[in-house]
């Protein structure tokens, strides 16, 4: 959480510095009366670096993926739901073939 957050803040700082550089570049263009076709190449490099850093932060800060399979190691203990009408148990009874042909005697 800590390292990813710092990387994210760093990426946002890169982006704001790139924005500031672009503002200065535009004021320079106003003086020389040129058209704005795109920011200078170092600003583009800075934007790409900021994008990479923010991508890293976006993937690491929210947390890790957790396994959804019921038989993985960290999912063994199941909490009983508060609604007692519908409970789903994961036990070995599923290994038996279901006898759909059984009749009530």
């Amino acid at each position: 959480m800590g390292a990813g957050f710092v990387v994210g803040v760093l990426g946002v700082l890169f982006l704001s510095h790139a924005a500031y550089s672009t503002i200065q570049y535009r004021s320079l263009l106003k003086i020389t009366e040129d058209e704005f076709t795109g920011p200078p190449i170092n600003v583009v490099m800075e934007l790409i670096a900021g994008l990479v850093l923010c991508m890293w932060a976006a993937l690491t800060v929210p947390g890790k993926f957790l396994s959804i399979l019921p038989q993985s190691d960290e999912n063994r203990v199941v909490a009983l739901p508060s609604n007692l009408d519908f409970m789903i148990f994961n036990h070995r009874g599923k290994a038996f073939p279901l006898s759909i042909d059984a009749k009530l005697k």
Partner: protein
Amino acid sequence: MCRNSVAAVLCDTAASAFRVGGRSVCRWRIYVYGTKSLVSSKRREIRREKAMASRDESSVPRKQSSDVADEISTFNAENMQNNAKIIYYSRTFMSIIGGVIAGILGFTGLTGFIVYFLVMAITSVGIAAKAGFSVLPYFNSWNQILIDGFLGGLLSFVLFWTFAYDFVHIF
């Protein structure tokens, strides 16, 4: 469609059908009356040589068992929600960052939306990499990783795109 005549069993004929390994497997949900628990069956076909010899009351011909693997019917719902939340946060944050970048670069019109789709595609690749390029222990299908939240961040993107463009190029 329910062939057995057990009086205490209600068959839900509108059960969902899933595709496992290219074949459709019908899952029946059988509500056992009185015990208030939900039991879901795995498959309808039982091996002929395993069941017929020991039963003397059934004369209904059975199909051969298929080699479709049994599908796990219950997933850990809390973890599924957790994974979906993580994907949502990642996509939202990357939409905002993509908006700021599109504004700084000065894109107007359709080229900005190209930036959005590009950023979302990169985010999808990143999420797939985070899940280890295998769908199974974390998600149900590839659609949840690659396609699900794709257009969700569009409005945030446009908002921050407009902010950044105004901030850098107009004021």
